[in-house]
């Protein structure tokens, strides 16, 4: 076997391995997405949901009483039950996705702000409007109780309800900006930030996305920002943030 044929053989083997890996990785759909599984449950009679939402009872056969208003049936069964929205004839799941659930800033440099982003996706196809709210369990906290404070922005006036410009590197703390579909108008541009509502301080969850209209794949981007001063004690700081997505009723 000549050296040239060995090289050719190596190249061919490498291409085969690459093709094999390519096929294996692409043919199995590993992408995690907000799956809307089907155009399911097309119902002839609005309100009756034959997928999730079938009401049942150990005492009564319900097939004909579901969603109907006949008083005789009500007095027999003692209940009526409807699922889904009257003007939307398909019951599509309400879904919420987030592209990155672990926001790891790593080691911070004093006076040099770090930012990380995550995409939020809401599909309220089966509902009318929706809202997404957010809160933090605590500020970024290290063992021993020291915290990286929630930012008050450059003016010192921003809170969990009021946005403000945070552009100076001499402004410290932790906060977020929203951009994209259905975000609060207070986030005028990417320099505007708010604090997270602090649940340990009994602050109310704050809206980060909302719409009164049926929405499919509404996408926004949340930018987390942190900046520390030289006075910040060294250590590991963590916290947890909860996003709550609820359709309108």
């Amino acid at each position, binding site marked *: 076997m000549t050296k040239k044929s060995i090289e050719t053989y*190596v*190249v061919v083997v*490498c*291409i085969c*391995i690459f093709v094999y890996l390519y096929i294996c*990785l692409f043919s199995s759909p590993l992408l*995690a997405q*907000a799956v809307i599984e089907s155009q399911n449950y097309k119902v002839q009679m609005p309100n009756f949901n034959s997928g*999730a*939402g*079938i*009401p049942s*009872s150990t005492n009564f056969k319900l097939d004909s009483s579901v969603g109907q208003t006949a008083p005789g049936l*009500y*007095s027999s069964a*003692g*209940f*009526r*039950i*409807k*699922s*889904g*929205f009257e*003007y939307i004839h398909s*019951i599509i*799941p*309400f*879904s*919420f*996705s*987030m592209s*990155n*659930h*672990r*926001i*790891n800033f790593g080691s911070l440099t004093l006076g040099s702000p770090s930012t990380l982003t995550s995409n939020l996706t809401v599909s309220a196809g*089966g509902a*009318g409007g929706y*809202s997404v709210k957010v809160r*933090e369990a605590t500020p*970024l906290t290290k063992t021993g109780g020291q915290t*990286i404070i929630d930012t008050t922005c450059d003016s010192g006036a921003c809170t969990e309800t009021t946005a403000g410009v945070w552009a100076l590197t001499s402004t410290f703390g932790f906060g977020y900006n929203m951009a994209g579909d259905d975000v609060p108008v207070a986030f005028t541009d990417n320099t505007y930030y708010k604090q997270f509502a602090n649940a340990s301080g009994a602050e109310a969850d704050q809206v980060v996305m*909302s719409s*009164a*209209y*049926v929405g499919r794949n509404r996408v926004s981007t949340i930018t987390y920002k942190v900046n520390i001063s030289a006075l910040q004690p060294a250590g*590991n*700081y*963590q*916290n*947890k*943030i*909860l*996003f*709550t*997505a*609820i*359709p*309108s*009723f």
Partner: protein
Amino acid sequence: MKKLINLKFASFVVMFLFLSTKYYVLSTSGVFAQLSTSISPPITEITIAPGKETTQIFTITNDGVDGTATISIVPFNSIDELGNVGLDEKLGITNSPMFANWFSITSPTSIKFGEKFTVFGGQKLNIIVKFSPPKDVLEGDNYFTFLYEFEADGENSNDVVSTKTNTRIGSNILISISKDGQQQKTAEIVEFSVPLIIDSLSPLKFNVRIGNPGSYFFKPLGAISVKPYFGNKSTLNLAPLNIVKNSIRNIPCTNNEEIITCEYDNKIKIGIYKTTLKFSADNDGSNTTSEKITFAFPFSLTFVLLIIIGIYRKISHPIDKHY
């Protein structure tokens, strides 16, 4: 020399394949950091007699990474005129005994309210919840949100500075307690605003706010009809959105399952337009109506016409100069 080039080429190919494969694998693992949850149905409406029981299936899915979930049911209040909910978490059934005996999970039996359970990526679960309001409960409405909270596996305690995010997704439950199923619905028009005078080219928009001073939620079933002095009547269907007790809701219109602004879209409007709002609360037999009159006049067209006439006259009859 040629062998050396071949060797370099082979090395290049191997390096390229290695890097591109590595990049793909790494980028795929990044995608795995996604949280993705869904719930169905988005809303459940139950009318039930005290002491009776019924069940509902909630389908929850996890289309993201593996993790743990908890199920809870929390009362809510209407917080605005758009149908958004304000959760009263202090009265959640895992926090308060007030509603604890109203709900129970009948399947899977391993899942309890407020207790963590594992949900793998791609998993779908049917949670069957039994509703059984006690016999002595007062008639009227009670509103709740079924909450599915998800937390991805893995802790961030070793990270230097990091935030771990959890998601919570809800499905609303409207429960009307009624002994006979014949709830008395009370609707009132809080606002039905229509402009009195409009330009012929501007849109004719309607604002409808309906109040519910009663004890039971209802949907306004009806329409806005617009009758021009000359021409045919047009109808805009009101969106049958729930108006919960002691609340006001801004009611838009609906067209082909889409919520739209209530707007008469004829391009040119001239003359008198009579607009009628007519609806009933869940087809209860009694209609609530309101009528408004709008005058449409071609202000902008007249203005343009006057300018054109003025320019024409200036061109055709230039001003005489007197010396």
